[in-house]
């Protein structure tokens, strides 16, 4: 059974906090699927997460045009994908997908583009716009992430 958790984020500082908490749970081989409408803050969440784990001043440009940006973080390489422009799931293999899920960490925007390649073990994070700066985050742990999510967010 997938485990879900809903959090209200009143401002960007709360989003940054959540990103830091999620970042601390990550280990090599993990896949985080980010969803939410255009402008919901998927890339901003990824930026906070990457900066929380590595250099706080790291440049984290949008991966929309390049499809993927990689970051060498302590312990693993993080791959930030924007799969919006993919036309079929197998194209992700060309971007190094097998290497990623073997020993890297993947933050994936537009994960539905993965189709059948979407891993069974994954953390899903959906961002919904609730106001100018406020968002509602829904985290869902699938497969092995179901129990990890529960443990990771114990009070």
């Amino acid at each position, binding site marked *: 059974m997938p485990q879900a958790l809903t959090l209200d984020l009143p*401002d960007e500082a709360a989003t*940054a906090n959540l990103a830091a908490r999620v970042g601390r749970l990550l280990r090599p081989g993990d896949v985080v699927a980010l969803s939410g409408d255009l402008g919901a803050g998927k*890339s*901003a969440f990824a*930026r906070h997460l990457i900066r929380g784990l590595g250099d706080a*001043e790291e440049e984290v440009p949008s991966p929309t*045009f*390049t499809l993927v940006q990689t970051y060498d973080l302590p312990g693993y390489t993080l791959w930030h994908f924007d799969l919006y*422009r993919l036309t079929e799931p197998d194209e992700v293999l060309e971007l*190094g997908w097998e290497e990623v899920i073997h020993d890297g960490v993947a933050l994936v925007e537009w994960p539905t583009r993965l189709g059948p390649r979407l891993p069974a073990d994954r953390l899903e994070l959906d961002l919904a716009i609730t106001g100018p700066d406020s968002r509602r985050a829904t985290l869902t742990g699938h497969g092995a992430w179901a129990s990890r999510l529960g443990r990771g967010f114990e009070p």
Partner: protein
Amino acid sequence: MIVLGIETSCDETACAIVDDTRAIRANVVLSQLDEHRPYGGVVPEVAARAHLHYLDGLIRQALEEAHLDLGQVDAIAATGGPGLIGGVIVGVMTAKAMAAARGLPFVAVNHLEGHALTARLTNDVPFPYLLLLVSGGHCQLLEVEGVGQYRRLGTTIDDAVGEAFDKTAKLLGLGYPGGPLLEKAAQKATNPGRFELPAPMKGRPDCDFSFSGLKTAVRRHVEQLGTPTEADVADLAAAFHHAVGQSLLDRCDRAIKAFKSRHPANEHGGGRHLVVAGGVAANTYLREQLAKLAAKRGLTFTAPPLALCTDNAAMIAWAGLERFRLGQTDGLDFAPRPRWPLDPNAKPMKFAGVKA
């Protein structure tokens, strides 16, 4: 001196040949060929094998168009990064193989340097000049001091301008590519002052850009409108242009001040040009605004023709030629570089948002 250039770092597969009289002998871009026109460059060449599939044919076609054979070429240049690693490897390996087989020098070109030096191919602009590079993937202000010598004054902390155009067009239901469609919509605006959108970063002391918040602001207006009418879309498109223009002008004006203080105009024509490169330079409104700013500050405004502003191989061949004639070539052990900043000393910018 004749140089053949190869570009495979992102969506385009391209080959071109230029010479040191600044003549473009051939310039072939795959998505501009008739059989690929239906896709209009929308589909990214994610697959390295797609580049591999077409590249040989494109090289042959470029040589035919230039009426040259490989024996008449003096050097082979290829984009060595930054970009998608699979594509870059295909271009670099092909160039190295040709160089090795023919005993020719190989030059690995930084894709951004290709954009940065295009104005010297098209308009013979002398160093130093100020460059605004605005495209789907990049948004940077650079002082171009010489071949391989760049000082980055500012960059985007999130989205590039072209990306903001594409995403805003999508929010407004206009389709792809966003630039031309948004511009067309804005021209139909009956009340361009109706919506107020923030001019991102305006007034900040640095020269950085940010366009992610602007997209979110457009989204908020669309949601408030419910189902925007054609008139709403036109007015919003106009407001978007105004906001982007205000932001670009403010950032450029700051950069011009910094550029002029470091590089006073000289008798060789240096220190006198504001160059705009990248696909966004095709936007008439932004072009006019930037030209006005340049004139006000006593700079000559230069923008290469659109076909040489978007990704192409002529710029790679030219940058290769500029490096080659300075004796800068690369060994066959050159490794493709997915990340390759033009100014390695540039300080990463701080995010405008709140830190955790």
